[in-house]
């Protein structure tokens, strides 16, 4: 198996609960008020060490969005989704940002 390339972040980071790979910086946290089927989720302006799945249109609590599921690049576990496009103007601020589900995260330390 090839050596998977993993980036390390400096500072307070949120890590993948299963393999401890760094996923996002605490400093990039935008909002704590998101929800997924599995519980609470956080919105981040940037995330690393993730691989992005195919785009699909999904009806979310806040309306129709084009999203792509994101997976931890090391263990392959699904960790959240990325907003590719928002269909309503009020939701545009989410475009390009990542939502990481609380249940898949470890940290803030």
């Amino acid at each position: 198996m090839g050596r998977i390339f993993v980036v390390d972040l400096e500072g307070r980071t949120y890590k993948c609960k299963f393999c401890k790979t760094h996923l996002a910086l605490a400093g990039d946290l935008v909002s704590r008020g998101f929800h997924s089927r599995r519980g609470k989720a956080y919105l981040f302006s940037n995330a690393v060490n993730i691989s992005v799945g195919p785009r699909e249109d999904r009806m979310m609590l806040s309306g129709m969005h084009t999203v792509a599921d994101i997976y931890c690049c090391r263990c392959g576990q699904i960790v959240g989704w990325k907003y590719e496009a928002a269909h309503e103007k009020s939701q545009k601020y989410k475009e390009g940002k990542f939502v990481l589900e609380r249940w898949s995260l470890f940290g803030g330390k």
Partner: protein
Amino acid sequence: MENLMIGPKGLIKKQEFVRIIIQSMHALGYRKSAVCLEAESGILCKSVDFESLESHILNANWDDCIGALNKLKGLSDETRASALFIVLKQFLLECLSRGEDALALEVLRKQVAGLWMGKEKVHNLAVGLLFLKELGSNKIDNGIIQEFRKRMIIDLENVLPPPITLPERRLEHLVEMAVSAQVDNCTYHTSDAITLYEDHHCGRDHFPSETVQVLETGKVTQKHTLKSHQNPVSFVAWSPDDTMLLTCGNMEVLKLWDVETGICKHTYGNDGFIVTSCAWFPDSKRLVCGSSDPEKGIYMWDSEGNEIKAWKGVRMPKVSDIAVTPDGQHLISIFSDKEIHILNLQTNAERVISEQHSITSLSVSGDNKFFIVNLNSQEIHMWDVAGKWVKPRKYAGHMQQKYVIRSCFGGLNSRFIASGSEDSQVYVWNQLSSYPIEILSGHLMTVNCVSWNPRRPQMLASASDDQTVRIWGPNCF
């Protein structure tokens, strides 16, 4: 006659062409042929102006000489001043040798100073002349004067511009320029054989393009199996003297093996020491490794197991890759995935290059001048070690998104760059082109790493997730 053009594109003036041919005949020593050609073509190698200058000098008609120099057209003021300076220098020398000191002094004060040559030069001249005076004016006899005059003529030839004089060995220079351009343009350059009878061109059939051997476990005789690492082995490096092998575990310690016996000579670092990459120094006695735990930093050891130096501390970031230039002068390391640090080991001067995307691997060229980094953005960037480039040269075409893919330099004069790719092919670029010149297919899965044979410019090896190593060569093997 002046405007006659020759050559298939009509770019060459006949008169200039013949003149440099005559010059090269003189330089090669064929004086009779040169004179013959001058007579036959009616074109003189030395221009009329220069001939007259020469005769004035040899006959010591200094006023005529200076007058002629002042009348020459096409000279910048600076050049004219330099030429006059040379002439006056000789004049002063001769004055002094004849004992005409007063005249010499007058000339020095008025004419030389008026040339705006710069105080230093004038002072040096004065000092030189005084020195000569001390040697005794009777020491300078006629023979030496003639020698000095001839030398002076050569100096003048170097100062005056064309078409009054020709630059030295002009024809040789033009031919070398043409041949160098052919070599630079040679895409598949695999041999340095240059002949003037044909345009230099290395054909693709001498370039590695086919699999020559596939090495699978069991088929190549294993000399030793080196067992000791707990984790997968992620990096190996041969010592430059061929006797030792360094191996890094994936996030593990560093081990040094003796190649002949297969015994592990040293293990660097205790439990918990995580090594990301390592490199040898050319003397095969020292090695460096980058570590990310417990204390992040770069550590230098010797082959006996002693620590020589360590760059560590609270502010040291994670070192993801490290390399030493083959001459041992520079240490290049990757900090925090995006920064390249080039440290000159002699002067301790450090240079930092910041990349926009994460760097996955680093490789230095065999001629110490360049290095390449593979980026997460599917590009390979080439930078120069000396630090003159503002932008890197970029190469693209391969696929790299998830894994660590390594690349390397190779071929004659490190002319080529080869890289693995996630689409199971090996990509090869010529340094001068952004797009690959050759894509080698054969592997079944991601190609992780390539290594070009440093002694055989037509052979390279590649390692893949399909558990094989392939050796590539030209199809005329």
